[in-house]
């Protein structure tokens, strides 16, 4: 199972908490909306990623689980 972060851009209002909590994978564009690193969420960052997901006031940040061949 590989995990990636994804934003629902319709729900996102650019509060920016995610970038505060997880600068390793999220930065903000010139208007305050998150730009997500398109890489997998490394296991050691998963806890922080979950915290960022929980902190989003509009529930716009998601962790997508992508099944891989070896499960």
């Amino acid at each position, binding site marked *: 199972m590989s995990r990636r972060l994804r934003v629902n851009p*319709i729900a996102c209002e650019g509060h920016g908490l995610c970038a505060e909590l997880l600068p390793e994978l999220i930065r903000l564009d*010139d208007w305050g909306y998150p730009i997500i690193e398109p890489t997998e969420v490394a296991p050691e960052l998963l806890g922080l990623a979950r915290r960022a997901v929980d902190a989003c006031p509009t529930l716009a940040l998601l962790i997508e689980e992508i099944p891989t061949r070896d499960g």
Partner: protein
Amino acid sequence: MTGTLAGHPGLPRLLAGLDQSGRTMSQSEHERIHGALPHLSAHELIDAVQASGLRGRGGADFPTAVKLRALAARRRVSAVVVNGSETEPASAKDRLLLSRLPHLVLDGAMLAAEAVGAREVIVKLNERAASSLHAVAGALPLRQRDPVPVRLIAAPDGYVTGEETAVMHFLNGGAPIPTFVPPRPFERGYQGRPTLVQNAETLAQLALVARFGPRWFRELGTVADPGSALVTISGAVADPGVYELAFGTPMTDLLAAAGGATEPLRALLVGGYFGTWVDSASALGLRLAREDLRSVGCQLGSGVLIALGESACGLHESARVASYLAEQSAGQCGPCVHGLRAVADSLEALADGGAHPRERDRVLRWAGEIRGRGACHHPDGAVRFVESAIEVFGGEIEWHRHNHCTARPAGLPIPASASASASASASAFRSAASEAKR
């Protein structure tokens, strides 16, 4: 103006029997030219479509058989939606098909509906396409033998209203604006059930594949791009209009079909406003084929080609289109709302000579950052257009800083009330969208 390349064997196909009168083809005339609607099992139809290599003609270029097979494997498919929105301002092919040859499109919709087990067909049109609405409404009562009922629905105009999730949202009672995916319509669409959405030309092509078979379909075109395509050619050509051409046709023949260029060409815009500018020197060496277009970073999109003459200013034209695309944002996603406006304003400043040339680097950075960050592909298409404008016309930025550009507008079509009505309806959508969020 409509037509085909004079004397090309095997053409016209879709446009066979169409004259310059502007009349809608009657059902009897349609059946005299193409024969009656054949009966095929779902397997026979989908296998024929797969062997034909037909791909979607609405811009996404997706293999039609793959979509049909995915829907046929699902239960309780609610509808086949004929997407005749055609919100691309420079495209006229779907309007031509629906207003002049509605029976061909409806034939394709019926075949598809039977193959995927859909309960109804919904023809979704742009409310600005009065002649299409009139022709389809007139054709429906004549089709007594159709196996499933057909409904005709008109939706407001707007660049993003034809995107398939926007079509679903509108049919389900919402505003005609895109939604977050998944679910895609084939998973959960109209009435929350699997729905097949196909462009009008795709269904017209399918109706011919069902009648004449994949081998016949492949008699035109190339191995990778079989068949014919409807191309809307406009700009600096003598006879702008919709032309049916075989894939593989050289670009120079395409222009010749439209009466030839009216002046030396500076560039071609391939694929409409989500498309790509190509310098005329490289464009004229291409064929109408995906591999050729891909080699210069292009896609055919919905089959739009605009010729820009040397007397026009590519920077100013592109800035106008970029501004239109920014206005046409549904107003839902931050990177699209703010990003496209900023990119369009900067491009305009570069064209007007009021910006430092480094502004160009900022536009390119923004373009890279905006890509992929909307719920739909509107921002992606818009930044692709802007990046290609800078690549092809960027060398003229320095000149515009020191000289007053007097080029006349080349007349790239922008819907007349776009700025007024689009921003009004966009703000209505925005308030609807923010209400939905609460």
